[in-house]
């Protein structure tokens, strides 16, 4: 039944769109499905403009994309779970992780809605608000924003922070923020899945934690230094540490064997003193040694 229905009812624009999607799937190595649920459409325009050279973004119906994908030879069973809600389809030849990084670094801001948390410090700047004196005065008062009335308009007398990053934004102030053009909430395109070179990469994997990479690099480097020192690998950056180790070994040996030179005297007497203090400390509760023991 559905077959006959489709054959008769598919409008031309749908056929055209599937064809276009198929061309893009063929043309680009990476296809990313991004959720538009709760995403302001005007912001999509900003993203398009910013990344015009590296990606194409198309908003389309899930069914049409699914059909185009299937006809392009993609195993749709692996992506159909992501084809719900409103989606944008990003086409690019870049590595999907790079696209994810680019998008996450591009800060898009929007106006606050009641119930939002601030993504950055929200400051009500000093100056004329243009708001007529009236009930808003008490709203400002409640939020401890100093005001005075000038020419029948509310003027704020001092820059005032109304929300720190992560804090909820007082709902009363939301209209004021709009009026003042303050956008304290970030919007981010949520990437649901990437298809790239026959690989399906779920969205959560696409988020690279650069700090983790940095600490892994550091750890690897330290491991390399440690191993290098262990085998006295002749490379300047390792030798510096190895020389220090050899020096401290020599000092420790001088200290423990009581071998005194002007260089080792400090080590020798420090070792002896540490032992003397430890012993003195161990009996200081019972004996008056007539000395001050650092414990």
């Amino acid at each position, binding site marked *: 039944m559905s077959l006959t229905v489709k054959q008769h009812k598919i409008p031309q624009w749908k056929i055209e769109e599937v064809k276009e999607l198929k061309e893009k799937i063929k043309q680009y190595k990476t296809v990313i499905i991004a959720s538009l649920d709760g995403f302001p459409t005007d912001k999509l325009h900003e993203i398009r403009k910013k990344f015009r050279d590296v990606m194409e973004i198309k908003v389309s119906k899930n069914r049409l994309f699914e059909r185009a994908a299937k006809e392009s030879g993609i195993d749709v069973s692996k992506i159909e779970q992501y084809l719900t809600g409103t989606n944008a389809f990003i086409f690019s030849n870049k590595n999907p992780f*790079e696209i*994810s990084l680019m998008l996450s670094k591009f800060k898009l801001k929007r106006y606050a809605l009641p119930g939002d948390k601030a993504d950055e410090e929200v400051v009500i700047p000093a100056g004329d608000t243009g708001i007529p004196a009236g009930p808003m005065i008490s709203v400002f008062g409640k939020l401890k924003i100093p005001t005075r009335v000038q020419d029948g308009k509310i003027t704020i007398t001092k820059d005032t922070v109304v929300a720190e990053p992560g804090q909820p934004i007082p709902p009363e102030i939301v209209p004021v923020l709009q009026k003042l053009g303050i956008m304290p909430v970030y919007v981010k395109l949520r990437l649901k899945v990437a298809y790239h070179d026959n690989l399906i990469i779920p969205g959560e*994997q696409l988020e690279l934690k*650069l700090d983790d990479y940095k600490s892994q690099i*550091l750890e*690897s*480097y330290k491991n390399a230094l440690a191993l290098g020192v262990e085998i006295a690998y002749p490379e300047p950056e390792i030798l510096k540490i190895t020389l220090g180790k050899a020096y401290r070994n020599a000092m420790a040996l001088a200290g423990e064997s009581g071998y005194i030179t002007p260089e080792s005297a400090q080590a020798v007497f420090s070792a002896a003193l540490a032992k003397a203090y430890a012993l003195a400390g161990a009996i200081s509760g019972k004996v008056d040694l007539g000395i001050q023991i650092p414990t």
Partner: protein
Amino acid sequence: MEYIYASLLLHSAKKDITEDNLKNVLTAAGVNVDEVRVKAVVAALKEVNIDEVLKNAAAMPVAAAAPAQ
């Protein structure tokens, strides 16, 4: 840590950390290469300045070591 060691090896040898180079090194080491991981590492290391990280490591041992805790 194989992917990181392989990347640092390439970096140390002054070669670009590309997907192909990384795969070559890992394969030569007998590692079963995970394509997704290779792509992730290459993308991440494009953003991370390795020399910078190592330089900071040397200059700020305490802060630098913190993540290792």
